[in-house]
């Protein structure tokens, strides 16, 4: 079966910076794929390769089986890209923007379809307004519409919800999920781990131009299946001090190997006569996985430091 997206050993260097370093992976048709990474990891560069905006030094990339360099007309027709930056043509109205975009893909007389897109993006009443008069969120919706206007099987969204208010973010999530259910392959880059966690099937994590992890969401999480308990109490039982991973006033972060250990913790608290003011169980999330894999920050402070502080 033809892959929706395929990278074969794609590398690209900008001067001293190795922006992409031997990247290879495939995305199956219909998948919802997440591309995660800190700033400068190469996410935007990688997806720009698909649209032909960035040319790799070596390696090849394909969209629906079409080589993005040698068969770019077909690869671009199969691809819709929602760019990260809010850009627009100040001479055009919303409807004209979509009409021209359709025209660039060779489509003619598709106003009914444009009306449909406008409706789905709640832009119908803005259709004849100049792009300049729209709010940032509205402009972003138009960008989504532009990426969809030629009905591409593959849709790439580069941080679509960056700097977007909560309401629009959820509206966009719902909209993108629907597109995925309708059969579009989605490739999403994001900073928001919650976004990737909620939406994506598989996730690739990028760091300094390399793929440091790539798997199904569940598998990516499983090696880190320990739990954290946030306990609010006067102190922590002495026997549990080695498990202490964070402390702030009366709030302690304690690591459990599994949920079964919670009982033992509670027993220890009772035995020491420590009153529990509050207790919350926190599941490992992608954020912790992400930070551990990319080592770019500290989701959990190194154990030694914390132990040193608390003992």
């Amino acid at each position, binding site marked *: 079966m033809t892959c929706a997206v395929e990278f074969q050993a794609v590398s690209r260097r900008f001067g001293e910076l190795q922006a992409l370093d031997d990247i290879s992976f495939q995305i199956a*048709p219909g998948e919802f794929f997440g591309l995660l990474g800190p700033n400068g990891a190469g996410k935007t560069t990688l997806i720009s390769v698909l649209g032909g*905006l960035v040319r790799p030094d070596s390696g090849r990339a394909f969209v629906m089986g079409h080589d993005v360099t040698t068969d770019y007309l077909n690869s671009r*027709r199969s691809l819709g890209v929602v760019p990260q930056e809010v850009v627009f*043509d100040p*001479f055009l109205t919303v409807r*004209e923007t979509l009409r021209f975009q359709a025209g*660039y893909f060779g489509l*003619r007389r598709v106003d009914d379809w444009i009306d449909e897109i406008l409706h789905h993006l709640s832009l119908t009443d803005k259709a004849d307004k100049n792009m300049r008069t729209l709010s940032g969120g509205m402009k972003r919706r138009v960008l989504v519409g532009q990426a969809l206007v030629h009905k591409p099987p593959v849709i790439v969204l580069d941080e679509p919800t960056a700097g977007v208010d909560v309401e629009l973010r959820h509206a966009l999530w719902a909209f993108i999920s629907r597109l995925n259910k309708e059969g579009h392959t989605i490739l999403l880059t994001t900073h928001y781990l919650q976004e990737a966690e909620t939406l994506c099937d598989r996730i690739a994590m990028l760091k300094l131009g390399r793929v440091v992890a790539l798997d199904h969401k569940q598998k990516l999480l499983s090696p880190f299946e320990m739990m954290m308990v946030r306990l609010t109490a006067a102190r922590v039982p002495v026997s549990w001090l080695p498990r202490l991973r964070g402390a702030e006033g009366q709030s302690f972060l304690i690591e459990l190997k599994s949920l079964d250990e919670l009982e033992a913790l509670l027993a220890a608290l009772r035995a020491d006569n420590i009153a529990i003011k509050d207790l919350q169980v926190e599941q490992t999330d992608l954020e912790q996985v992400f930070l551990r894999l990319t080592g770019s920050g500290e989701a959990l402070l190194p154990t030694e430091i914390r132990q040193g502080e608390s003992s």
Partner: protein
Amino acid sequence: MNGRANSETAAAKKVDAQMTHEITGNRLLKKSWHMLFYKEVLRFRRVSFQTVAAPVIMALLYLLIFSHALGKVSVFGDRVSYTAFLVPGLIMMSVLQNAFANTSSSLIQSKMAGNMIFFLLAPITPWGFFLAYVLAGVLRGVVVGFGVWLAALYFAPELWRPVSPGWVIAFGFLGGAILAMLGVIAGLWSEKFDQLATFQNFIIMPMTFLSGVFYSVHSLPDFWFKASHLNPFFYMIDGFRYGFFGESDVSPWLNLTFVGIVCVVLTWGTWALIARGWKLRI
């Protein structure tokens, strides 16, 4: 293509129908570049007061001032009045400057606004890109030139019928195309408006002004007479003027040869830059 839901509307199916066939080779997709051309035309039409009316007024001011100041200057052995002599030069100058302004300013504006990606992501071939921009530039040049001609008829009614319109059209089109291509190159090269202004003020303007718009090169001292013959703009304006009067400083065929060669070289060069994605794709 891949298991789509069946709840598609008629409008959606219509899009699918237009997108089904695959494109073989680097075929020039007419529909795609036509749309880009149309957008370029719309861009200057939307602000036609600035892009068409203003240059016409400017040319008329030149005409008034120079014909008043230099009305007694003799050209072509007094067979042509200085005012009439001036008009074709001014028309051509307007064509050239506006063809250049259209492509260069459109590209730099798109670059600054970041909206170039809309057509860079589209299946438009380098030739499509080239044709859309260059032809839109030529069109604006020709529209302005036509406007100048109409307005100038008030001052020099004898020009309502050029001696050989074929030459007028040929040089108008080729000159416009050459400047539109230079505009594409300048627009691609510039990263700021400032750089574009440098190109315009230090290269385009002096070359137009020193090309015989306002005078016959035969009236120049020997050095400048020879130097003028190295200026491609001289051949465009001289050939264009021949179309109006049947008289020129050099043979129209020499003009055509020179202009033709410049046009071919620039076509190749501009296309190659676009095809390489020079300053467009990194």
